[in-house]
């Protein structure tokens, strides 16, 4: 079990209210301070004001593309958020690569359970482990032509 630093801020940016509320409850119960944003501009504003340790960003966030959100965060020298976890239904190799160039640390393919996300957040906040063996880092699994593989999570 991961030891959670009490009050560690996690910002969840997702336009789907059920996903947003579910993740907020799950993260709060896990000991984090969960923040929620339903649009790209709201996510940017909250990231600036609250400086979360992790931004969980849905690829399909509305009012501003997820890539624009990430680009804006990358341009900001004040570094308003720690790490970015990109989530989405249609996360293919192209999206993962583009996200990685904009500072994404890990990706998760939707749908996932709340427990899955809490576990992933915990892993991202763990102190860095010794350097991985060559080839063990950026290994996105390509999404098949139809529906993507449900377990294709990626750490970058």
């Amino acid at each position, binding site marked *: 079990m991961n030891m959670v630093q009490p009050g560690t801020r996690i910002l969840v940016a997702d336009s789907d209210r059920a996903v947003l509320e579910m993740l907020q*409850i799950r993260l709060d119960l896990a000991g984090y301070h969960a923040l929620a944003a339903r649009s790209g501009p709201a996510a940017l504003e909250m990231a600036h004001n609250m400086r979360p340790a992790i931004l969980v960003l849905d690829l399909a966030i509305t009012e501003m593309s997820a890539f624009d959100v990430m680009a804006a965060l990358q341009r900001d020298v004040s570094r308003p958020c720690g790490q970015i976890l990109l989530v989405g239904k249609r996360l293919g190799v192209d999206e993962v690569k583009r996200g990685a160039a904009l500072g994404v640390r890990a990706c998760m393919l939707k*749908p996932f359970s*709340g427990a899955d996300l809490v576990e992933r957040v915990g892993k991202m906040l763990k102190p860095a482990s010794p350097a991985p063996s060559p080839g063990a880092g950026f290994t996105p699994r390509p999404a098949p032509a139809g529906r993507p593989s449900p377990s294709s999570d990626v750490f970058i």
Partner: protein
Amino acid sequence: MIGGELRSDVATTFDVLSWELELAGARCIFLDTLIGKLLGTVAPEHREQLIEGIQAVDLLSQHLTGLSTFARSLSQTVGAPEQIEVGGALRSVTLGALADRMTSSFGGDEAGINDGDDAGDLDLF
């Protein structure tokens, strides 16, 4: 408008169901934690009742999580892009915030009804 003419593919329908079940499960876990905190504050003679309540909520949470996993799994295995009419079924959902969230998830117009806005029931038409 909630529950009007609205179409969705089967995979998305199971997906939306799965998120709602997951949310309901998360609310149960929250309730479970809350009751657990109250346990130390009640008189010893009432504790057994409260423990039974915790067990019931815990079972309910697992029940919902299991159903959510089932629906999520179905959403990933359904291949055909067949569209189904979901608006009619949404009209039978009387919890306003739930119907509104699901309508929004299916791509319909959102009325902005939140869980705290009313007691739950909503006259749809």
